[in-house]
């Protein structure tokens, strides 16, 4: 008797009636708005770069030296090579030092006085304007050697990477559960073995992400390079000679009076953005770690 049994079903939900929770709408709505605004800004930049710069990019742009001032044609090959050289030098300096400091802070120092001083210094340096790294290297390397150089530029960028790397490394190592350290120690492993053989591999994905962010950060630095790498219209003659870098090239072309420079500046900026995005996604794909949250 379905008809009868429905009689005791209320026609309206009464006090359970569905209603709009305005606090939810405003709360989540505002996060969606924030997302749309930020994403919109990012895509606007990217679209602007594509619109103005795509025309500049062709094979010659990648493999040629700059043309004579104001002339059409020519490329930014020395800037691309220089960027690669500077990023390599800075990574060789900045990543091991930064990871070392991070390991020290997370695994050895605890909350000692020295550790607190180190953390304060790192937090200060992370927020320090990068030009200061440039000035520092200018006085310790450029002036004594008497020349702007790739090495000076790489050191300046490396100095910027150290605190970034140190802080991300410390943070991700702290996420590794202590149960892993205990398990290793209980097997009779010395602490360095636990750190290098267990804790660091468990945090590998996080350390790599930190490295990618640090590289991306310095690949886009201009200010410290003005005082150290200087820039160069040609391929560098050696590591102790001035070298070009992509953002130095963008700066020079963007400030110049020629339309062809402006277009090439957009093209170079587009290459930089796409290159950083591609590079970081590739690295993260190839070094996917275990998920630590399973622990």
């Amino acid at each position, binding site marked *: 008797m379905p008809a009868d049994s429905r009689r005791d079903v209320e026609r309206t939900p009464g006090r359970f009636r569905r209603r709009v929770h305005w606090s939810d709408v405003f709360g989540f709505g505002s996060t969606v708005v924030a997302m749309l605004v930020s994403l919109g800004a990012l895509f606007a930049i990217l679209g602007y770069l594509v619109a103005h710069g795509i025309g500049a990019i062709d094979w010659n742009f990648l493999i040629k030296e700059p043309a004579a001032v104001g002339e059409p044609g020519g490329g930014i090959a020395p800037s691309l090579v220089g960027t690669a050289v500077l990023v390599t030098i800075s990574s060789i300096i900045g990543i091991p030092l930064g990871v070392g400091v991070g390991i020290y802070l997370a695994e050895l120092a605890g909350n000692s006085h020295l550790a607190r001083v180190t953390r304060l210094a790192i937090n200060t340096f992370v927020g320090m304007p990068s030009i200061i790294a440039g000035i520092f290297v200018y006085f310790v390397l450029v002036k004594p050697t008497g020349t702007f150089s790739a090495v000076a530029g790489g050191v300046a960028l490396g100095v910027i990477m150290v605190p970034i790397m140190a802080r991300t490394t410390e943070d991700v190592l702290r996420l590794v559960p202590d*149960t892993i350290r*205990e398990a290793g120690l209980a*097997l009779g492993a010395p602490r360095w073995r636990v750190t290098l053989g267990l804790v660091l591999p468990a945090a590998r994905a996080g350390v790599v992400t930190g490295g990618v962010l640090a590289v991306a950060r310095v690949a886009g630095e201009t200010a410290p390079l003005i005082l150290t790498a200087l820039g160069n219209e040609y391929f560098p003659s050696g590591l102790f000679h001035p070298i070009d870098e992509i953002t130095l090239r963008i700066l020079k072309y963007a400030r110049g009076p020629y339309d062809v420079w402006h277009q090439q500046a957009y093209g170079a900026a587009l290459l930089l953005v796409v290159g950083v995005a591609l590079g970081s996604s590739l690295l993260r794909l190839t070094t996917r770690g275990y998920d630590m949250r399973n622990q």
Partner: protein
Amino acid sequence: MSIATAPRRLLQSQPMTDTAVNVSPRPAAPREDAPRAETADAPPVLATRDLSLWYGSQQVLDRVSLAVARHQVTAVIGPSGCGKSSFLRTLNRMNDMVSTLRIEGAVLYEGVDLYDRRVDPVAVRRRIGMLFQKPNPFPKSIYDNLAFALRVNGRRGPLHDDVERALRAAALWDEVKDKLHASALELSGGQQQRLCLARALVNEPETLLMDEPCSALDPIATSKIEELIYHLKQQYTVVMVTHNMQQAARVSDTTAFLWMGRLVEIGRTQDLFTNPREKLTEDYVTGRFG
């Protein structure tokens, strides 16, 4: 394995004395080659003497003196917070990580005070393995979990035979032999705990400490582990902390009852559960508190 032939390389700098509970914590002249006979009573392999422990100003253990017999399972029971886990962790110096730790008294392993300044805690832990409350496999493959343990112990060359032996000893081989290179994290909780047991066994320690090894496992996995513990004592000395009194009654030979940091009673498991000497023990094992 007699005491005389026990590998001594791990505690090299430590002179060995006659094994007895009441030896001096500062061993006298080395007697490396002195003959030592095991008495019928099986002298304790591990003993604590007036062991007190503080975390900062909080006292956790109060003058605990307790002996552990070789090739037996000794269970430590007591209510939560009675100090049984802390006690277990002093036996292989896993408490060293706690910076506020303070210890008085002695932990004697075959007559050597493990808290002597000259003792290397790494060497202690190689001889006295540990199984934890929650399975804690490394985020590596099953094989690499065991390979890491072997390599930190200085093993080189092919490891497969040792890996298989340890996995068989932990009754896990048949379940994982076809996926040794799969992540250990893909195993079930009970399998993970047996992997951790295999990892603890792979270097053939002499003594195994277990900190509530089944508390995170379901009843079937628990009974598997208990069965393993029962067989392990032929080769190992086992000290097990548990809050599960039935488990202590099932698998242990000797049971110690800790209460508020003090050792209330220790005796043969059967006696302690059926005929306890202390009123407090009786109240606890009959479920009147705790």
